[in-house]
């Protein structure tokens, strides 16, 4: 499969937030305003690309040769937790600007299922190393596109007169449903599964 197809599929037609429901907890929690959504999506894209870059060699060069692939969950989540910790320390030391924009979201990312999900999908779909890098980067961008669109819509919604029970999570779900429906419209540009 060529790389451009993988990239476009990850961003639009097979968006991880709207078709695979990955990273839904932060999607609901931090989509209230655009600034935080921006910081979160940058942090997610960065950690996601890094996680795929590190877990791919571990899986294919370590777990597969020694026939211990059932350990992948434990190993992957530990690698992700360690990566997040390292990235947080590095960002804090080197760039106060980056730390203020995305650093504060890093601790939340260990339990963001989008990161673990992307590394698991990468294994299930048997991507090569380059394909995995493209896929994880595209997925991060796709997640970002979805949450930024949601945040922009929710900022406008502040002035809408919603029923009490629908405010917050309820309306977010319904908007996500409508967004998922419109993203299904992208399906025509590619023919992959």
């Amino acid at each position, binding site marked *: 499969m060529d790389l451009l197809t993988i990239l476009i599929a990850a961003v639009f037609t097979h968006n991880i937030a709207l078709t695979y429901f990955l990273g839904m907890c932060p999607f609901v929690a931090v989509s209230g305003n655009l600034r935080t959504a921006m910081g979160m999506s940058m942090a997610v894209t960065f950690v996601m690309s890094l996680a795929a870059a590190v877990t791919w060699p571990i899986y294919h060069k370590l777990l597969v040769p020694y026939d211990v692939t059932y350990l992948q969950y434990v190993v992957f989540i530990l690698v992700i937790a360690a990566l997040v910790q390292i990235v947080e320390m590095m960002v804090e030391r080197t760039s106060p600007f980056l730390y203020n924009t995305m650093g504060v979201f890093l601790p939340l990312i260990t*339990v963001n299922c989008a990161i*673990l999900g992307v590394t698991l999908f990468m294994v*299930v779909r048997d991507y090569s190393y380059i394909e995995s890098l493209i896929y994880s980067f595209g997925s991060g961008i796709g997640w970002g596109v979805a949450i930024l669109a949601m945040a922009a819509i929710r900022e406008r919604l502040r002035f809408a007169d919603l029923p009490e029970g*629908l405010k917050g*999570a309820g*309306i*977010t779900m319904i908007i996500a449903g409508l967004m998922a429906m419109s993203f299904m419209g992208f399906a025509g540009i590619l023919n992959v599964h």
Partner: protein
Amino acid sequence: MTEQYDSMKEVFTRGIIKDNPTFRMVLGICSTLAVTNLVSSSIAMSLGTTFVLVTSSLSISLLREFIPRRVRMAVYTVIIATFVVFVDIYLKAFYPEISADIGPYVGLIITNCVIMGRAESFASQNRPLPAILDAMGIGIGYSLSLLAIASIREPLGFGTFLAYSIAPAGWQPWLLFAMPPGAFLVVGVYIWILRSIYSD
């Protein structure tokens, strides 16, 4: 800080409706949205998640004096991941079809924030017995929510319930409900209904 509750019964029952993890706290919805297009996957996911909830809450509660505070999250994650491996191997061995339907979402039980949430806010501060009761209550609440969503999505989306055809002759399946948008819409409407009935 130990939260105070009136009785064990309260600890057990509040997870089912009052603190329902899916509709009231809106936690762990990735897996909820993903597996509820089939009732059978939902049952498997509910049992798996409840098993991991109960066993990890018990382990964390037993080990609560020994886990250093600074690395507690990492320790919880490893404990949870270990039990998830059990569930994954069990499903692959005995129910390969369901395992194929759910796919990588079994692994995502690890990052289900319901489990981490209970570990952090309850199991790590309470004795084993209340920890188990709390985990079971939350597990039942989670399972009931999954079933409630799946029993709308599968009949509307495929015209079946547990793979038995229940649709009247000439029924055109409403495929949208088996696909992602349907999941969001059904969950959104459930949240709306429950929040209107039990307003905070």
